[in-house]
């Protein structure tokens, strides 16, 4: 019988369109998976940033993947009901970000997103925190640009939010 765990397992193959080392499940953008009585599947997604242009691709990839596994009817919904925060990235997801050369967002644990947190980043190369926020806006909405004083190199961070 089709289970939620099985669906989540299949969805591990659906990765962020720009970061192939992290699945949408581990990124935390898949907020709910439900197997319906008629064998169809409902998936609820939430954007990392409200203006994320990749949402339609993510939605399409989820639908294509589940249909390839023989699910007759896949319903997807994009909702802000359970809004994304960077704390929703799983430990496996954080590992995936690092493998892609991205610094991980510090854990907020429900705390306030203040200036200290925005400016904090650990260099993905040498792991020092002797780093400086260069600009809160990077190549995509979800990335900030920092500078490592030890490596003397620029690096990108998946933003805390």
């Amino acid at each position, binding site marked *: 019988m089709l289970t939620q765990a099985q669906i989540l397992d299949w969805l591990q193959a659906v990765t962020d369109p720009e970061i192939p080392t992290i699945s949408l499940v581990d990124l935390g953008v898949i907020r709910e998976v439900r197997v319906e009585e008629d064998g169809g599947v409902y998936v609820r997604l939430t954007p990392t940033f409200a203006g994320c242009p990749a949402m339609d691709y993510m939605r399409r990839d989820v639908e294509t993947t589940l249909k390839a596994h023989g699910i007759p009817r896949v319903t997807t919904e994009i909702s*802000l009901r359970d809004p994304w925060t960077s704390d929703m990235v799983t430990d496996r997801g954080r590992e995936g970000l690092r493998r892609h050369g991205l610094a991980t967002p510090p854990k907020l644990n429900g705390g306030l997103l203040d200036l200290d947190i925005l400016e904090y980043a650990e260099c993905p190369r040498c792991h020092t925190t002797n780093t400086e926020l260069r600009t809160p*806006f*990077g*190549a995509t909405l979800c990335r900030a640009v920092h500078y490592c004083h030890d490596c003397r190199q620029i690096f990108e961070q998946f*933003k805390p*939010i």
Partner: protein
Amino acid sequence: MMDPKLDLLYRLADDQLILGHRNSEWNGLGPILEEDIAFSSMAQDKLGHSLQLYMLLHELGEAEPDTVAFTRNAPQFHCCQLTELPIGEYDFSLIRHFLFDHAELLRFEALANSSYEPLALVARKVKGELKYHVLHANTWVKRLGTATEEAITRMQAALEFTLPYALGIFETTDAENEIISSGLFIGEKELQRRWEASISKVLAQTALTLPDLRLLTPVAGGRHGQHTEHLQPLLDEMAEVFRLDPTADW
């Protein structure tokens, strides 16, 4: 009187759409690469926010987001005039961004507690993103506001030129009392009070002087469809493709 929810949503959404488009005009022109990217990113955020708000309007029976965004003319827009002014020099764009986004962050923090739950949900998302906009504005206002004499003079002149327009952010409509009494929003007067405290705190860390705001005449009218000559050409440009082919995908 317009329905209070529609009245509020149109003002919020139109501000985001128009300033978003203005910010995007820095794409390729920023004084340094990081600023080019910053203004382009903020443009993308703001267009995303406007879409969320136009979707709420659509749920309330208004037309599709693209139709609402691309088929109205200037007199049907509810943005404040501050958002529609051309990007001008970088000092003006930066000061506009600073004055507008401080108000915007406080506005969406308050809207996160709105009695209108769908709007509160959008606000909870948007306010986190706006923190980055305010952080960006503060960084540059502090940097340039404490730099060379030329920088300080230009930033001060931009501040004095822009402030009357910024006070137009808080122009109210007939729906204001109902918006406050129904718990939709704290109201423009309270927002302005918080905004003054917020910008003063940053400006105090610079060589810039905040003029006495009570002596300034706000540039109002935007909330009632009265706009500068700059809005219509912007709308025409924004809607050029949509008007040629409403089904075009790009």
